[in-house]
C-alpha cells in the first residue's frame, strides 16, 4: 500500500517553544486517519504545514509522494482542505463559492455544476440562495466540507470538521466521510474521540507536539489493556477497600471509583477478572448490583496515554 502522507521528524518552533517536536506520521493511501489530541497539542500547526500554509523549522513532509516544500499546483490539485474555522467571501452565495473553487481546480463547467448541486444537497445547503454572510457557523462548516470535496480529492485534510456542528450535522458529516472510505485518503484532526472512533481505521495521538502513538484502532486497543469492567456494589459496602483489593490483582491495570459505589477497572485479562471479581465482592460482604465487561474505548486509551504524558 502506498503512502498518501508522510512526515519525518517534523518540527515547528515558535519563540523557542516546540509546537511540533520531531513528528513522524505515515498515512496509508485509502485509509481514514484520525489525528487526535487535546486543544493546543499542535494538530492545526501540523495541518498548516502539510497544506503548505506554514513552513517547518526542520523535518520533511511528503504529500502524495512529493515534498510539500517543492510541490506545486499538481499536488494542490489533488488535495481537499477544510480549515478549523473556514472563512468565505460573505458576498457570494454557496453555489457561487463552489463554482469559484471548482474553477480554481480547472473543472469542466458541466461537471462543476453537477458536483456543486450534489455536494450542496449532501451538505444540506441545496436551494439555499442567500449570501454566505448570513450563514450560521454550522452552515459555514458544512459548506467548508462541501468545497473540500469539489475536486474529488485524493487526499482530504480536515481540521476539526465536526466541532461546530449539532448532533445531526455531525452524524451527516461522519456518514459522508464513511461513504468516502476507499475512494480517498482522509486525514482529520479532532478532539472528539467518539467521532474518530466511529469512522477512523487508523489513529495518531498527539500531545504537546509529540506523537504518543500511531496505529490501527484494533492494535491500539489490544496494546493498551484491551478491556474494561464496570462494577457496581451496594452503597453500604466499603467500596474503597474493595477497589484497593482489586488493584492488587495482577490483571488489574487501572482502578478508579466514584462516590456511588461504582468501580471502573481496566484489565489485561478479562476472563481472569470476570472469574475473580464476584468472589472479591463477596469477600468484602458487598452486594453486587452490576458487572459490565466491554472493549476498551478510544477515550480510555487517550486518557491513559495523554495522562501519562502529562
Amino acid at each position, binding site marked *: 500500500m502506498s503512502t498518501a502522507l508522510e512526515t519525518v521528524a517534523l518540527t515547528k518552533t515558535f519563540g523557542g517553544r516546540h509546537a511540533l517536536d520531531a513528528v513522524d506520521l505515515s498515512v496509508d493511501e485509502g485509509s481514514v486517519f484520525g489525528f487526535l489530541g487535546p486543544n493546543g497539542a499542535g494538530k492545526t500547526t501540523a495541518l*498548516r504545514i502539510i*497544506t*503548505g*500554509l*506554514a*513552513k517547518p523549522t526542520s523535518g520533511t513532509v511528503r504529500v502524495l509522494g512529493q515534498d510539500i516544500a517543492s510541490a*506545486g*499546483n*499538481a499536488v*494542490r*490539485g489533488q*488535495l481537499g*482542505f477544510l*480549515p478549523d*474555522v*473556514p*472563512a*468565505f*467571501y460573505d*458576498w457570494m452565495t454557496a453555489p457561487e463559492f463552489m463554482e*469559484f*473553487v471548482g*474553477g*480554481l*481546480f*480547472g473543472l469542466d463547467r458541466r461537471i462543476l455544476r453537477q458536483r456543486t448541486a450534489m455536494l450542496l444537497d449532501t451538505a444540506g445547503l441545496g436551494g439555499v440562495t442567500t449570501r454566505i454572510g448570513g450563514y450560521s457557523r454550522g452552515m459555514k462548516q458544512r459548506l*467548508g466540507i462541501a*468545497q473540500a470535496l469539489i475536486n474529488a480529492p485524493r487526499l482530504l485534510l480536515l481540521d476539526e470538521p465536526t466541532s461546530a456542528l449539532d448532533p445531526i450535522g455531525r452524524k451527516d458529516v461522519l456518514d459522508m466521510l464513511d461513504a468516502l472510505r476507499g475512494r480517498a485518503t482522509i486525514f482529520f484532526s479532532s478532539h472528539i474521540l467518539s467521532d474518530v472512533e466511529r469512522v477512523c481505521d487508523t489513529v495518531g495521538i498527539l500531545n504537546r507536539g509529540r506523537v504518543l502513538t500511531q496505529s490501527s484502532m484494533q492494535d491500539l486497543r489490544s496494546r493498551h489493556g484491551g478491556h474494561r469492567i464496570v462494577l457496581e456494589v451496594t452503597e453500604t459496602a466499603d467500596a474503597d477497600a474493595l477497589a484497593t483489593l482489586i488493584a492488587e490483582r495482577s490483571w488489574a491495570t487501572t482502578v478508579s471509583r466514584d462516590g456511588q459505589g461504582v468501580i471502573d477497572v481496566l484489565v489485561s485479562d478479562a476472563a481472569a477478572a470476570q472469574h475473580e471479581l464476584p468472589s472479591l465482592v463477596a469477600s468484602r460482604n458487598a452486594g453486587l448490583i452490576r458487572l459490565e465487561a466491554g472493549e476498551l474505548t478510544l477515550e480510555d486509551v487517550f486518557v491513559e496515554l495523554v495522562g501519562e504524558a502529562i
Partner: protein
Amino acid sequence: MRSALVFARKETFEILRTWRVFVLPAILLLFAVTGPLIAKYTPELLSAVAGDQFSSLRLPTPTAGDAYGQWIKNLGQIGIFALIIIYGGIVSGERRSGTAVLVLTKPVSRVAFVVVKAVVNTLYLTLLLAAGTLVTWGVTALVFGDAPGGPLWSSALVWLVLAVFYLGLMTLFSVLVPSAAGAAGLGLGLFVVISVAAVWRPVADWSPGGLLGRASTLAAGTASDQVLWPVLVSLAVAAAAVAAAAALFRRQEL
C-alpha cells in the same frame, strides 16, 4: 493560468458587489462634476461673499484649463488619500479574514494571488478615471462651451501613473503590514514625504514626486517638460513593489 483568470473574475465581482463599487466612484464623480462648476463660479462666489472688499483685485476669466486643474488637484490630494486608505488591506484583508487560506490551498500560486489583485485594481482605477474624466470633459463643455480634450486626457494619464505608483506601494505595504490601518498610515506618510521632497528640483524631475505638478501644468494647457522620467520611474517602482510583494508573500506563513 486558468486559476489566475478565475481569481481575477472573483476580484472583479468582489469590486462590483461590495462597498468598493461605491466609494471611489462616488469620490471621483463628485470631483468630476464639481471641479468645472467651482472653476467657473469661484470669481462670482468670491465677489458675492466679499462684496467691495476685493474691488481692486481682478480675477482672470475662468477657462476650461481651470476646470481641468481643479479636477487634477482634487484627484492628486483627496483622490490619492482615498486610494491609499482603500488599498491598505488589498492583501492583508484576505489574510485577516481567513479567505486566503481556502484560496491558497487550491491550485493558485501566491504570486498570482498578489499580482492578480494589483492588475485587476489597476484596470478598475483606469476605468474609473476614464469615466470621471469623461464626466469632467462633458461638464466643462456644458459650463464653458469649449473643452479641448488634449490637456484633460494627458493630465489624467499622468495622474493615472501616480495612482498606479501608489497602488503598487500599497500592495507591498499590505503584505508587509498585517493591519490595513497600519499600511494606510505608512502610505500616507510616504505621500507626505514625497510631496515635500518634490520641492527639490531633482526629486521632481526624476521621481513620482514630480507627477502632480506636471499633471497640473498639462491640465492648464501648457506643455510640460520632462514628463517621461517621472512616469517611467513611477511605473518601474510600481512594478518592482508588486514583484517584491509577491516574493515576500510567497515566503510568509498564513
